[in-house]
């Protein structure tokens, strides 16, 4: 809760109840922050693995929905992986997402480039933007939930505490990643 303003008993109760109600969201959010943090922390090692894989011709072929053929190099998450292909301009790397929709799988290039490290950095930066989108949506859902459950009560301090908690989850990992990415070379 907010350190500057003492919450009332009702606000404390609402906070505890909302923590329980949104527990799955909060756990999933933290797990995804951790996953992105791990990618950022191991960025140079993953880029090296992708580069080493590119020197070999092994790796399953993935055809993305734009018709481009890639070879799988390294898994990033359950549904995203670093892939590579040879072009006239040299090796190209991409982060490819395979989304298992009910109607069929889609395979999209999230971002690509000739430097594996830069491709991974761009991916990690984009994922942090996604986390911010998610954070703002969870905060809005908490606000909606509290407005319905505690009508005519000021629960702004409770909503704010959720927002701060989620922002800290993102920024703590971002600052660690920034510290660790200095001097990364492949």
């Amino acid at each position, binding site marked *: 809760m907010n350190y500057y303003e003492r919450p009332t008993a009702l606000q404390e109760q609402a906070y505890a109840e909302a923590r329980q109600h949104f527990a799955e969201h909060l756990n*999933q959010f933290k797990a*995804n922050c951790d996953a992105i943090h791990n990618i950022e922390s191991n960025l140079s090692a993953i880029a090296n693995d992708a580069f080493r894989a590119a020197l070999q011709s092994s790796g399953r072929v993935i055809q993305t*929905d734009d018709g481009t053929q890639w070879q799988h190099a390294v898994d990033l998450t359950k*549904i995203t992986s670093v892939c590579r292909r040879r072009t006239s301009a040299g090796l190209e790397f991409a982060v490819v*997402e395979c*989304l*298992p*929709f*009910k*109607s*069929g799988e*889609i395979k999209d290039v*999230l971002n690509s480039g000739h430097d594996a490290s830069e491709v991974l950095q761009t991916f990690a930066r*984009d994922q942090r*933007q*996604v986390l911010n*989108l*998610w954070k*703002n*949506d969870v*905060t*809005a*859902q908490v*606000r*909606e939930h509290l*407005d319905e459950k505690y009508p005519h009560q000021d629960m702004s301090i409770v909503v704010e505490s959720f927002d701060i908690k989620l922002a800290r989850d993102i920024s703590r990992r971002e600052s660690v990643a920034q510290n660790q990415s200095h001097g990364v070379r492949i």
Partner: protein
Amino acid sequence: METIPENETQTAAPPVERLAYSVQEAADMLGVHYFSVYRLIQRGKLKTCRALRGKLLVPRAELLKLLETE
């Protein structure tokens, strides 16, 4: 004279199709995790609107468009 069978008079009205869904509902409909839906939104592949308190809503038309395209 024909009479309306009793079970027909008691038939529930067909479910009204919603105009928009939350991210969680959209994820359930697509069969993916909701983080993937936020990813699609961030990449501009799914357009959203916002409810009164700022909650993201995915219009039904956008979901159908995505499913048809893919």
